[in-house]
């Protein structure tokens, strides 16, 4: 018992400094707050354009990150819809078109400033979301999923019929009177993404988020506890469609060009990809969803474009994405978030195991 000093140990046990949190613990606690995480994320991604100017990163890399964030905005809304409200919807893609076409008609044709286009996008998609929400009360499950698919196709075909190719001339875009160039678009996307991420995270950890979960788990219990099914279903759809429309608006700002008849942006493929991203990341995890979007949309244009093999055979990347989705669902139903959680748990357990083992060994010795 060489380590036993009775006096010190008594002091430690009775008068420990447990009320004073060490600096280390304080930092850990701060990092756990979502807001801190989002701010750090903003800062890191915010300096990318600077790094591109300095030549550390290529501008196509920054562009690709911006593109990924647009899909991430869609995915965050979808995460709330699927993971927290349990509503199946394959209509995400169609609502993206709303934002894109409003961008075209308002900013290109009528020369309206960005702010107006944004507000109109939100309002139109809000109304659409309310409509779909009301529909969802009559129809459930697979019927709802396919119905939303039908809605998405309606929207897509409508847009193709309206104008099959839309272009946005950046010189016409103004935000609060200031002309927006390419770098500013990236920062705008980043700002919107983090803002929406933060709002969604707040909603999830608020009574609204809990109400959504209760509607998902048991409609009877939810109603008995005073939760209005209609209100929350509509809310879930509204958020999903508004986010998708905002993503469409930003898509036009970033890419400035879309040939709707051949583009896959408004087709079932995008809806399925977003669904896949949410599932890969973990249906209830926002960071996981962001990661999933990066895997599906970002990996190809950022990292793999450096590898010549993948540039020549883009089909491989699609295959790998499909394979990844299949494997993750087969072996990690909770997605990357679950994997990460398991790893952290294993590490914790390993540390505990090691500590206990050391102590047990010492009991036998003097």
């Amino acid at each position, binding site marked *: 018992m060489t380590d036993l000093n009775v006096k010190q140990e008594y002091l430690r046990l009775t008068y420990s400094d447990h009320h004073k949190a060490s600096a280390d613990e304080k930092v850990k606690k701060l990092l756990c707050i979502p807001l801190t995480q989002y701010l750090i994320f903003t800062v890191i991604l915010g300096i990318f354009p600077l790094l591109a100017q300095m030549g550390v990163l290529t501008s196509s890399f920054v562009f690709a990150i911006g593109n990924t964030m647009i899909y991430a905005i869609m995915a965050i809304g979808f995460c709330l819809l699927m993971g927290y409200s349990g509503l199946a919807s394959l209509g995400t893609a169609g609502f993206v078109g709303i934002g894109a076409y409003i961008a075209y008609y308002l900013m290109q044709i009528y020369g309206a400033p960005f702010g107006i286009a944004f507000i109109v996008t939100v309002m139109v998609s809000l109304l659409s979301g309310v409509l779909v929400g009301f529909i969802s009360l009559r129809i459930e499950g697979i*019927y709802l999923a396919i119905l939303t698919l*039908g809605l998405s196709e*309606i929207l897509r*075909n*409508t847009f193709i019929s309206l104008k099959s190719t839309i272009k946005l001339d950046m010189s016409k875009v103004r935000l609060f009177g200031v002309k927006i160039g390419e770098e500013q678009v990236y920062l705008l996307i980043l700002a919107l993404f983090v803002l929406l991420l933060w709002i969604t995270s707040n909603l999830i950890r608020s009574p609204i988020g809990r109400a959504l979960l209760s509607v998902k788990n048991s409609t009877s219990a939810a109603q008995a506890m005073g939760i209005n099914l209609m209100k929350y279903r509509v809310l879930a759809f509204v958020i999903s469609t508004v986010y998708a429309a905002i993503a469409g608006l930003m898509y036009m700002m970033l890419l400035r060009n879309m040939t709707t008849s051949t583009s896959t942006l408004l087709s079932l493929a995008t809806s*399925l990809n977003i669904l896949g991203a949410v599932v890969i990341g973990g249906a209830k995890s926002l960071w996981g969803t962001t990661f999933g979007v990066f895997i599906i949309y970002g990996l190809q244009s950022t990292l793999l474009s450096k590898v010549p093999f993948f540039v020549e055979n883009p*089909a491989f990347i699609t295959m790998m994405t499909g394979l990844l*989705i299949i494997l993750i669902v*087969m072996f990690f*139903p909770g997605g990357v978030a679950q994997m990460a959680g398991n790893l952290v748990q294993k590490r914790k357990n390993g540390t505990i195991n090691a500590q206990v083992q050391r102590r047990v060994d010492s009991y036998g010795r003097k």
Partner: protein
Amino acid sequence: MFAAFLSTVCGSLLSICVTALSAFSVTIIFRTSTTANFAQGSVAAFGCYVVATYLNQWGIPVYLGVLPGMIAGVLIGLFIDLVVFRKGRHVGELGKQIITMGFVSLFYGGIPLLFGNPEFIPFEPFYNTTKASVDSNVVLNAFGGEIVLTKHALISAAITAVVLAALFLLLKYSKWGLGVRTTASSEFTAELVGINTHVITAISWALACALGVLAAVMYAGGGAMINTSFMGTIQVNAFLACILGGFSTFYGPIVGAVLIPVLSNCVGFLANFPAFSDISRWQMVIVYILLLVIILIKPQGLFGKKVVKKV
């Protein structure tokens, strides 16, 4: 005028056959394994590519060439159900559907890799086994005008009718059919009464994929260009047919599959009237809106039954 109308309706014959087979496939998979098979179109396309290879490289007649494609479909279906679904750890309903989506991507990338140029492979329709000069249309003179039907469509219709009739007879009278209907009703209970649901679902998947390939071959033979996503619209229509008819029955989706192409062609027919001459642009939109309205009126499908949970 009426003849022209009938002609338009008959023009949708091929689409009806293709959609009906696809809808049946989607239904049987959905009823037995509660999965919406998003890979239906992709598997069908893959099988079609296999068939095309046999046709073009070895000049095999199309009637025989269909077989390797269907066998490929069967193998893929069995693989998905027996290997992927069973080996996975707690793959739930949603999980299975996501896996089918993964297969879409897998095929989307895999088809170009396996078959080279993915865009266009010339394909032969059913009527023509050797000669290209045989008259391909059947013309009926009735109702004061000409009604044109392609032989390919007629042969396809005959094949579809025989296949579906055989399947419905099997479903109603055979032991396998009883197993399918029981599993469709409740998989858990079916297992308890001794039905081997694993075999049932595996056969369902195999059957569905084979039928999908058959549908794709018919569709390609009708003049469609083959590429990796050429069955996309058919798949969407098949899903819509299923919810139009309702998943509660097996014949409902077939009825839906008849309605959708007919409706679509009827709306297209309106282009003959000067007031609606521009309608071809909005054809699909109108059709889908009509479908949505019907579904809203009958949320469980035309033949569906509402399941009420007892509190």
